[in-house]
């Protein structure tokens, strides 16, 4: 308090000494400077609530921050952000790359993003995701029409600092979608001031670690139902390339030529079809560009559609690592890059190694749990899980445990369960295994339940009994993960990344070493894994 008064006194003295005697111009300048500083602070605070999981990954920020440091970049739509792992390229091949794509980035914005990128960097290769080439102008217009906030536009245009490029990008935007309020793009506050309503305490906190991975969005989901992917395989919408698309590809090729780097077209999504492939191939030949289509290299990349896709379009981390491996080999075979791992100015990559390891651990665990075809396999995977990052939730349903083997009981004991389930019948039983220890609840003839909160995640496990009226279920953060199965219910939650790694049940009431099953809605049904590889869907 005393020091605060002293500080005010000091400011007062400074004011009397220097500012008061001077003319009023100085005072006005000081006033405007403080106002500008305050506005910038407010602007930065209000910007954060609009940054969703995708928007927060703007790679252009790091492009500006570390000039002349990237060997390659990936441009285009969301697949350019999620389907490649820049960290993996660095760790395995020593290549520094960055993703500058944005969800549904139209080609013209990819072109201006490239120009901005080349103003700051001297790469050897620029990869352009072909999905951006296939978007028609009308498609983009309709999408923007639905999105009154123009978030898609902001993600690309806001990150462009060069006035001339930004101006041209806005001019092209206006040509495509009609009248736009350009001040939205020159003054962030103009656009984001309404976010005061969404502000929370979190927005005022400085993040502990950088929340970006060189422009990548890391996806942990595993697309469990591949049937959807095959439906998407019959992608029939028009993909005839517009003259505008050709114009921008040609301009991008010219920009790359001027910067002495190669423009490579890449198709990194697995629902492409032959017509699209041929159209892009013809375009690449016309402008003498290289073209790589993942669909031609599924065997080489060892891509598994049932495990490496986060959804029909995007790869999860495992898929992106496989695709990065393929592109890393391609880059090593065709270009000479200095090994950035030996360069101390790339410490930012080194700092992300641990997070990346944990991310890989998370996705591989998830894959293993999903790949387990029997109860025994599933329990084996569980016993190898790091308890620090995982919470295992168990609830018994209609417990008779008739077919629980000694080996399985042993593995359950290894997980830390003290109750011998093989001898139990007509009882309620639940368990929560976390870094805090094992919490078990057992109740003969009655229901059992357990609850726990860990790292802001809440868990609720309920087990029915022979006479109880409740339904066995596992809830995470209030959301039902599995309910109403038979035997033992399991759910595994990753506390590091706040995702549910697995949720299924094993009907040991009826079968020995049963397969995992999942209750989807009211009824029951097993998870259907696709076994066929993705093949060309030739419409002729």
């Amino acid at each position: 308090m005393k020091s605060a008064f002293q500080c005010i006194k000091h400011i007062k003295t400074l004011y009397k000494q220097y500012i008061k005697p001077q003319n009023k111009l100085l005072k006005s300048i000081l006033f405007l400077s403080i106002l500008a500083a305050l506005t910038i602070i407010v602007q930065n605070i209000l910007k954060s609530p609009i940054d969703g999981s995708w928007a927060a990954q703007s790679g252009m920020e790091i492009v500006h921050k570390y000039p002349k440091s990237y060997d390659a970049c990936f441009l285009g739509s969301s697949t350019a952000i999620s389907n490649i792992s820049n960290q993996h390229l660095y760790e395995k091949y020593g290549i520094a790359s960055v993703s500058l794509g944005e969800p549904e980035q139209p080609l013209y914005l990819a072109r201006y993003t490239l120009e901005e990128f080349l103003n700051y960097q001297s790469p050897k290769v620029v990869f352009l995701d072909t999905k951006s080439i296939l978007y028609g102008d009308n498609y983009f217009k309709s999408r923007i029409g639905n999105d009154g906030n123009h978030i898609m536009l902001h993600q690309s245009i806001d990150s462009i600092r060069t006035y001339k490029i930004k101006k041209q990008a806005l001019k092209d935007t206006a040509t495509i979608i009609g009248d736009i309020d350009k001040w939205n793009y020159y003054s962030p506050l103009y656009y984001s001031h309404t976010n005061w309503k969404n502000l929370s305490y979190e927005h005022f906190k400085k993040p502990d670690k950088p929340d970006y991975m060189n422009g990548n969005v890391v996806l942990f989901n595993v697309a469990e139902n591949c049937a959807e992917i095959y439906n998407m395989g019959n992608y029939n919408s028009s993909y005839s390339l517009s003259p505008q698309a050709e114009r921008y590809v040609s301009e991008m090729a010219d920009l790359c030529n001027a910067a002495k780097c190669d423009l490579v077209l890449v198709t990194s999504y697995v629902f492409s079809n032959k017509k699209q492939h041929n159209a892009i191939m013809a375009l690449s030949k016309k402008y003498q560009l290289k073209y790589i289509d993942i669909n031609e290299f599924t065997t080489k990349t060892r891509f598994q559609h049932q495990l490496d896709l986060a959804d029909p379009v995007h790869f999860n981390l495992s898929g992106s690592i496989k695709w990065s491996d393929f592109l890393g080999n391609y880059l090593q075979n065709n270009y000479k890059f200095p090994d950035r791992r030996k360069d101390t100015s790339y410490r930012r990559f080194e700092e992300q190694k641990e997070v990346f390891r944990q991310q890989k651990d998370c996705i591989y665990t998830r894959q293993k749990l999903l790949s387990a075809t029997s109860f025994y396999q599933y329990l084996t995977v569980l016993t190898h899980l790091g308890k620090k990052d995982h919470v295992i939730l168990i609830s018994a349903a209609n417990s008779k445990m008739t077919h629980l083997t000694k080996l399985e009981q042993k593995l359950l004991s290894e997980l830390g369960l003290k109750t011998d389930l093989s001898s139990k019948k007509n009882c309620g039983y639940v368990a929560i295994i976390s870094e805090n220890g094992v919490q078990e609840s057992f109740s003969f003839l009655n229901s059992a339940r357990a609850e726990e909160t860990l790292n802001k995640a809440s868990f609720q496990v309920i087990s029915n009994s022979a006479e109880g009226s409740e339904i066995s279920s596992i809830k995470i953060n209030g959301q039902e993960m599995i309910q109403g199965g038979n035997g033992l219910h399991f759910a595994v939650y990753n506390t590091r990344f706040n995702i549910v790694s697995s949720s299924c049940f094993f009907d040991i009431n009826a079968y020995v070493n049963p397969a995992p099953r999942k209750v989807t809605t009211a009824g029951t049904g097993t998870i259907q894994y696709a076994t066929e590889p993705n093949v060309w869907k030739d419409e002729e």
Partner: protein
Amino acid sequence: MINFISIQFLIFATATLILYFLTPIRFRWTVLLVASMFFYACTGLNALIFILLSANTAYVTARSIEDNYNSSTPNQKRNLFTLLSGITITLCFLIYSKAGNALASAISAIFLAKPLTFQVIVPLGISYYTFSIIGYMMDVYRKQQAVEHNFFKFLLYMSYFPQILQGSIPRYRTLAPQLFTGHLFCYKNMCYGMQRMIWGYFKKMVIADRFALISSEVFGNYDSYEGLIFVVAAICATIELYCDFSGCIDIALGFSEILSIHLDENFRRPFYSRSAAEFWHRWHITLGTWFKDYVYMPIVSSHMISKLCQKTGKLFGRHFAKNIMSAIPLAIIWILTGLWHGTGANYLVWGCYWGLIIIFSTIFATDYKKIIVKLHIQTDSIFYKNFQILRTCLIYVISRLITVPGDLRVTWKIIQRIFSEFNIWIFFDESLYHIGLDRKDFWVGTISVLILWKVSSLQEKGVKIRDKIASYPLILRWCIYFASILAILIFGIYGSKQAGKTFIYMSY
């Protein structure tokens, strides 16, 4: 068009200020003229032609009247004819822009087989500058005003950009000398002017445009609402209109104050009025005084009214004649005021509504006083004063119901729906957060209105807010400025997500 609520305007205004103070003093008025012409040209070249034609008409009329007066044989009838011609021509421009489409459809319905359609040009601020120049011509005719011989100076008086959007309606004798005399830069005026502009922006962007979301939602979808929701929406529409109009005037006055030009005040806390007549002495003051000087007084002093009074006096007595004497000019003024705001039937009814209230309150004033005396009501008590203030506010809120829906049939339906259900629970069940504003926006609006109310009540008590702020220590003063500016930047309704509305009185 350059709107006050735009970054373009801030750039334009800053550039004008810099140029003004950099130009030699005797040429400073030319900067204002060029800026005004540029500002006006941004609304469209057609509109510019209109203002030039109107300026030319008034200029020529005034010069002709002056020439006639200066001639060896001044002819009053000729001057009257010149004046009426000038007024008729300028009014024709106004009628064309205000009622062009309505007249075209009426003419085509009577005389033509096919409907006549054409694009009517509505020049910005035509109602304001038309009234200004009519006043100027009449003053010249009455020999109350010297004629301006420099056409460009006259054009500047007419088109001075800060007041072209929503007024006020300036008098030549008060504004012109200030415009043509170059002013030195005054730091105090700059600070005071900017304060006033900030206050205007706060009223417009934080309050008016926020409450506009409620009124447009409720009156735009009146079928979906009933009961007290309409009362809330009408109150919001009232707050919206006051803050919109007075906010714009504050910006215009503030900008002019930076130039050391003092425009006429147009508002004096109208919601502290204790009667309808007082309300109109505090609301849109320059329009009221214009009507008083150029319509009311000529009618009252006309021979026709005197004769009518004499005749009615003989027939029905003096008291009745006195009432007629005051009722006729008031009725004419209020019909004209209604038509000035718009040519729709709702504006005519609105004018009649106010006219009737004011006429009846004038006629029955003595009877009313007698009742008060009989009931032993203390007219100076706070209770009675507040009752009168609330009564005036209620009268105004009802008048908003006549004009906001835009159609008298809709107004009637809304009035029926107000009484269809007494849903008082809307004040307790969060219904108010679902009629255009969410909870947070609603409370920001409410708190802003409370700030406005507090400031107004202090002003009403005679406190000069700006002088008071100027007396604070620098740190506190600056904190107030920063807080006000940031409040506008954060809570203001602007940008593509929450586009604010244009000024309501701009369309008049």
